[in-house]
């Protein structure tokens, strides 16, 4: 017998690469797959997250939906790529043919998984572009990278679920079954509609859905309300992924399909290694929004105490004075009760040309002596044009930290030219998305109250500053504030 010509390693890699390339081409050329998976998330985001959000003057909505539609986008390619197309290839004999031919071990799975991740990468980039340039959501490069990796790696969980479906159902039934999993899970995991607005029992069962855990991680990154620690979410997702994957592979193996080649145990070992690597990454903080701590894990506790954000290892701020008043402008000055401020600032330092000025005026809210009037001119130039007045509670502006934990509400009064203004609270030790709260400043004084429990993603143990100002508009503006207090 003649001796076999060995397969050079370079050709083996090339075979895997070509398999990925053709799987990707196949997916792109199948409109029934490519159009819904690629364009529905961005379309929904622009419609519901951006358009509806800006109509209501609600930047938080654009922020929330950036996270949740990203997760929605991460679900489709894996679920349909495996659930539908694998079921069809299994039924129509292609899987058998490739298995009889020397298709490299695991290539059928790898190619589909990489295809799904590439699709999710495209979806995530489209969403981030829309968020930054259309909705003007302030996203740092680091946050963008975190959202991107959460979505792309999260896609693997849905690949495993899709594989499980594809190993059971017929090609004809598969689209219906996949949609029955996809759409209800997206809704129940709070991807379309925040969970807080859903009936309690739906909130209670939400942790049963893998998409929920991915969404909580993504929401944590954009600084929206989220619960649970990163490590806990990653652990649940990895278990879901491995569980469905192993069940599906076993099922397919029984049907004569060696999805993992002639030595499945070796491949499972490699997959487990990869899963361990994901866990390690999440522990080191690359995957979450900071190093996860064991103490983060119980979701209820984290939400209740408002310490959902990591960085809990960093030093907390200086204890806040017992007096709830921060500034009431009744002593004839614009000075706050402590710290530095109020200070009027434009965005020149951020490369813009917006300006702001402030003066003390008589006639505060509720008949008090004085109030602070802020005027200015908002102009394009900075990435996120903003001008207004700032308060820094402790030490150097934006560097000193104050601990407001235990306080329940943050309130202020405002009136103005009828336009929408934004109140921000900067928290945490790293520069993330601040808490943003929009208010309409009408001709009459009105009190605005923030229930701090609603903003548990923000770290009130470490408050660096607060600001009132104008953003998302053009030209001159004018508004007055009074009686800023936290109690």
């Amino acid at each position: 017998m003649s001796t076999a010509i060995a397969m050079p390693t370079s050709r083996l890699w090339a075979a895997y690469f070509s398999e990925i390339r053709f799987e990707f081409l196949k997916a792109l050329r199948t409109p029934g797959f490519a159009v819904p998976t690629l364009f529905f998330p961005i379309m929904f985001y622009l419609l519901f997250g951006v358009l509806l959000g800006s109509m209501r003057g609600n930047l938080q909505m654009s922020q929330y939906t950036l996270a949740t539609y990203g997760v929605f986008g991460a679900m489709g390619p894996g679920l349909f790529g495996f659930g539908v197309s694998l079921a069809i290839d299994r039924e129509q004999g292609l899987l058998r043919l490739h298995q009889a031919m020397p298709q490299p071990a695991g290539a059928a799975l790898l190619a589909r998984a990489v295809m799904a991740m590439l699709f999710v990468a495209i979806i995530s980039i489209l969403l981030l572009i829309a968020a930054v340039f259309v909705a003007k959501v302030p996203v740092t490069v680091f946050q963008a990278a975190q959202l991107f990796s959460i979505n792309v790696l999260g896609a693997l969980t849905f690949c495993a679920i899709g594989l499980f479906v594809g190993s059971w159902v017929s090609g004809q039934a598969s689209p219906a079954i996949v949609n029955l999993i996809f759409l209800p899970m997206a809704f129940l995991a709070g991807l379309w509609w925040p969970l807080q607005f859903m009936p309690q029992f739906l909130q209670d069962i939400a942790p049963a859905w893998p998409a929920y855990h991915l969404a909580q991680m993504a929401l944590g990154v954009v600084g929206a309300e989220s619960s649970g620690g990163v490590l806990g979410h990653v652990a649940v997702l990895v278990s879901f992924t491995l569980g469905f994957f192993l069940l599906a592979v076993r099922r397919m193996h029984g049907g004569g399909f060696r999805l993992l080649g002639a030595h499945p145990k070796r491949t499972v070992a490699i997959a487990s290694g990869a899963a361990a690597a994901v866990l390690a990454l999440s522990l080191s903080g690359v995957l979450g929004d900071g190093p996860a701590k064991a103490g983060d894990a119980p979701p209820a506790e984290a939400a209740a105490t408002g310490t959902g954000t990591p960085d809990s290892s960093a030093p907390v701020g200086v204890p806040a004075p017992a007096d709830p008043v921060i500034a009431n402008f009744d002593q004839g000055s614009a000075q706050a009760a402590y710290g530095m401020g109020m200070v009027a600032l434009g965005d020149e330092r951020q490369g813009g040309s917006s300006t702001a000025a402030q003066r003390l005026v008589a006639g505060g809210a509720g008949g008090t002596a004085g109030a602070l009037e802020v005027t200015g001119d908002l102009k394009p130039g900075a990435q996120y044009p903003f001008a207004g007045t700032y308060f820094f509670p402790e030490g150097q502006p934006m560097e000193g930290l104050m601990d407001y934990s235990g306080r329940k509400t943050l309130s202020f009064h405002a009136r103005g030219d009828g336009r929408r203004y934004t109140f921000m609270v900067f928290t945490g030790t790293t520069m993330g998305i601040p808490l943003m709260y929009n208010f309409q400043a009408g001709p009459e004084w009105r009190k605005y109250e923030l229930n701090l429990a609603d903003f548990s993603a923000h770290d009130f143990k470490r408050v660096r500053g607060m600001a009132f100002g104008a953003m998302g508009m053009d030209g001159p503006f004018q508004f007055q504030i009074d009686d800023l207090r936290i109690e």
Partner: protein
Amino acid sequence: MSTHALASLNGIRKRFGGIAALDGFDLAVKRGELLALLGPNGAGKSTAISILLGLHAPDAGSAQLFGHAPQEIAGRRRIGVMMQEVALPGVLRPRELIAQAAAYYPTPYDVDAVIARLQLREVANRPYGKLSGGQKRQVQFALAICGRPELLFLDEPTVGMDVQAREALWKVIRELLHESCSIVLTTHYLEEAEALADRVAVMARGRLVTTGTVEEIRAHVSRKQVSFSSTLSAEFMRGWPEVMTLENERGRMQITTRSAEALLIKLFREDPALADIEVRRAGLAEAFNELTTQVASEKEEARP
């Protein structure tokens, strides 16, 4: 014998549900031969092939492909496969499908050379889903040979092809044999086996009935066909013990018999004016039918 065989099955038993698809089956494929595997539907042909390809594991017996278990990829890197009823992705183009398959092999042919060899140039860049049935089979054949295989499995390769396409494919098959590629062919077209096969293996009921050259298989069969023109009535001849079957086509009689000589003597005696005599040995089709029905009836008799 298996040392000379590129691929072999030894004493294979395989049951699906309660039914024995293979019941102690042996087969060996030698270098450079075209082995036609024949048998009626349900004889176990596709089970035998799928065990050789590593798609099923046998319940008992052993299978090898180039000295490896068929599940191991090393042996399968030296084979090419064309199966029945496989739908390739309709959105990919023949050139892409061939390139994808060629990437599985260590030393494949150049993609353009394969396209040229199978006269697929005109359709090479058209979506596979838009091709005719015959063109699709040609693309599947291209996938089977693109890896420069030493052993080629062809399952009903010419189904759905027109006469020209079939002739062209036969030509390539003969060239491959000339290049000392071995081929295992399963086909329903007995003339295809007759035209191409060096050796025929006849299967029935999960067992190998016989194996040999086309000539040897024919010789197994003692039946002959005698046709002639005669004034004798068909009813008269039907009673003769030598006559197995008799057909009367507008005065021309056709008789199947196991003893042509005795029949001819009798005919001349009864009808001295007997004319246009033709004696033909059974074709592969008749041989095949006789062999497989024999096995079937033996089995029936063997039942308690």
